[in-house]
């Protein structure tokens, strides 16, 4: 699919003199500097990370790096590709990475990528946990050996380190960026397959394929020009697509899928092959009334996931029976025994446990999945016979309550990975792990198993350890698995979407006109 940029697109769909051009939906970026907004599709197109997943092989491969190696998973040696430059022609060196990493890890910058470096040695000095002032302004674990060599020391072994290097916060930044960060913010220079052309605030961001990019196929898309059209809501983008003004949309809500099929045709729909997300009902340990695992199991048993999936979700979600999505190697089918619908058993377990006469509060983000949460609540209420109350709040407020452990009940949430690893899911249940604040679940055994799994360079062994950890967690059921939603993208005739390990990236779409 790549390489057809030169075959000449038709006028009309493309921009200007026959050049292939694709447009995609985006919201007004808060920032297009990858470190500041790691989720940004624009940032991804601009930046070539050290490691990256090849869209053709679906394998993690070195990109800007020649190699990333470690013997103990703690100290990692990185060798850069020769002769790589930034869009402006300045060479990409080890320092380009180290500088960017140090800046991102600096707490006071408040760049969103900050947390990525928590595993690096020296991060705690820059971001002391006890609230004291930072004592360092550089990551001590990052050493620039020479222009093409870097050495990174982690606080603990982590076999996923190369995967971390495929995420956007680890992008390099040219020296010029630090001279004037504000200017860089408006016109970033990076080393990726596309270079920045213009940012017309609230209207569009234009990127253009960079001839100097040395990465191979599987890291670039087919269009010469990429236009990020800015929308505030996906509905508007959809309407614009039906009017023929837009080529690609990702994260298409399930409610839109049928409509798209009938209005735009089946071929417009792109189903992401690797399911990377999961919806769960997490139950904070600190909510006393919900502490009993039996109650949690009863709740889980009272939800008819199949019915909801078939009706409300129109089959665009599958019931979940594990704490991780099936696409992960550590997945064991049915690891959650109580993730089936059995109201009789549910009632019985609950009765044996002494019943529940309080109110089950379900918190959720008021901006999304309201109907789903209602349906779940209704199932619990009708089938288990307990009182359920919904508490929808805004995203910021919910995050704060979750992070500060101020939730009043169970919380409905969606979790996705940044890179494909069971650790990304299970660390939620590790003391102090990523996302652990939500439940506050803590189990020494689990902690130990996860630590071991992370440090294990042998993937098979690691997988086993992860599965083991999961089965222990499942006993306490700090989270009730609900659904694995299918992720959809929409494409126009000219666009050919694809995804890398469950992540649909616009800039890798093929151009088919």
């Amino acid at each position, binding site marked *: 699919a790549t390489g057809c940029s030169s075959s000449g697109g038709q006028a009309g769909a493309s921009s200007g003199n026959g050049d292939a051009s694709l447009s995609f939906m985006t919201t007004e970026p808060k920032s297009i500097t990858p470190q500041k907004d790691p989720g940004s599709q624009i940032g991804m197109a601009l930046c070539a990370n050290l490691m990256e997943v090849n869209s053709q092989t679906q394998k993690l491969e070195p990109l800007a790096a020649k190699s990333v190696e470690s013997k103990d998973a703690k100290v990692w040696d990185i060798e850069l590709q020769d002769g790589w430059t930034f869009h402006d022609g300045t060479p990409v060196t080890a320092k380009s990475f180290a500088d960017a990493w140090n800046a991102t890890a600096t707490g006071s910058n408040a760049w969103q990528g900050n947390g990525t470096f928590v595993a690096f040695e020296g991060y705690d000095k820059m971001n002391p946990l006890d609230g004291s002032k930072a004592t360092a302004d550089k990551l001590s674990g990052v050493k620039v050996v020479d222009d093409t060599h870097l050495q990174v020391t982690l606080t603990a072994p982590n076999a996923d380190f190369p995967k971390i290097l495929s995420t956007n916060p680890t992008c390099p930044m040219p020296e010029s960026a630090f001279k004037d960060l504000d200017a860089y913010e408006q016109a970033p220079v990076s080393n990726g397959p596309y270079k920045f052309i213009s940012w017309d605030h609230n209207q569009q961001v234009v990127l253009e394929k960079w001839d100097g990019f040395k990465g191979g196929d599987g890291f670039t898309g087919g269009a010469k020009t990429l236009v990020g059209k800015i929308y505030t809501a996906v*509905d508007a983008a959809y309407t614009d697509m039906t009017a023929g003004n837009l080529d690609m949309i990702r994260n298409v809500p399930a409610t839109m899928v049928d409509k798209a099929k009938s209005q735009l045709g089946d071929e417009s729909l792109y189903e992401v092959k690797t399911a990377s997300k999961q919806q769960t009902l997490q139950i904070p340990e600190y909510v006393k009334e919900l502490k009993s695992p039996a109650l949690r199991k009863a709740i889980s048993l009272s939800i008819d996931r199949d*019915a909801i999936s078939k*009706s*409300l979700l129109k089959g665009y979600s599958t019931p979940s029976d594990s704490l991780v999505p099936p696409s992960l190697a550590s997945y064991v089918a049915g690891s959650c025994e109580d993730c089936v619908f059995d109201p009789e058993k549910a009632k019985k377990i609950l009765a044996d446990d002494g019943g529940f006469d309080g109110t089950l509060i379900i918190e959720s983000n008021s901006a999304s999945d*309201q*109907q789903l949460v209602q349906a779940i*609540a*209704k*199932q619990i209420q009708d089938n288990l016979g307990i009182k359920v109350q*919904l508490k929808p709040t805004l995203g910021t407020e919910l995050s704060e309550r979750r992070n500060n452990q101020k939730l009043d009940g169970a919380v409905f949430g969606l979790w996705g990975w940044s890179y494909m690893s069971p650790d990304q899911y299970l660390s939620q249940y590790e003391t102090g792990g990523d996302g652990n604040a939500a439940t506050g679940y803590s189990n020494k055994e689990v902690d130990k198993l996860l630590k071991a799994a992370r440090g294990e360079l042998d993937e098979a062994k690691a997988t086993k350890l992860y599965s083991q950890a999961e089965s222990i967690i499942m006993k306490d059921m700090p989270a009730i698995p609900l659904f694995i939603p299918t992720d959809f993208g929409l494409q126009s005739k000219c666009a050919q979407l694809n995804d890398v390990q469950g992540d649909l990236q616009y800039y890798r779409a093929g151009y088919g006109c």
Partner: protein
Amino acid sequence: MSTTITTISTSDGADAVDRAPSPMRGAHRRWWLRPRFAISGTIVLLMILMAAFPQIFTGFGPGPTENCDILLTNQPPSAAHIFGIDIQGCDYYTNIIYGARASILVGIVVSAIAFGIAAVVGAIAGYFGGWIDALISRICDMAFGLPFILAAIVVLQLFGQRNIWTVIFALALFSWPGGVRFMRSSVLEVRNREYVQAAKLLGASNGRIIKKHIVPNAITPLLVLQTLGVGGMISAEAGLTFIGIGLTPPAVSWGLQLAAARDYIDAAPHLLIFPAIFLTVTVLGFVLFGEALRDEFDPKGK
């Protein structure tokens, strides 16, 4: 020499005729026969009944969230479910009937609160004038100047759990200044009427004058304005809920139904159509009712 026939000037009621009858009296006669009044009054009455006793309209059937079957989600209207079935698999007719309560309650309570505040504050501002008036007017300016949606969102954010009362609070908080201005200007008109001065001359206190003379004579325009406003408030609630900052489930309201329906406009248009019809008819009813009231009270009316 002359025949003095008539009685003298203190003759009593012999000449007590009904002089040029006031327009109000005339208009009041058989007002309920006027089509505008009759139609809008019926709608308003019906809606209020629906809000107060939804059971009547659902034939004592199950409540809005009972007897639902999630597998039937979004089924179009049929004989058994004349308005179809909603997203949660519940009978939509029942839901819409129960949804009236929130809308009507918001409309009426907010208007009533705004009416009360405006009557009191407007009367004070208009009657006393001076710095009190200046202060109140400036406060009104503030409340006016703040974009309503922004202010309402911010206020609604203050509540963890948003229910009908928080929505009412937020709407009421910013919906009185118009009334105050209105009341103030009609008080300004009444304040200098001679009967007010006459009461002053009799030694009436300010409180008495406001209560007995100013408010009764200045209140009609405000009353009419607020009746008109009921419809506006019903729409406002729906609007707030639509942008996700108004009511939240499990509350049932037309606003919520419309907000939810938006995602299903193509798949299940009935979800949108029915509450929209009810909302429109209700707003129309209240607005027409206000208009009719205005005509009744307007001495220049006909």
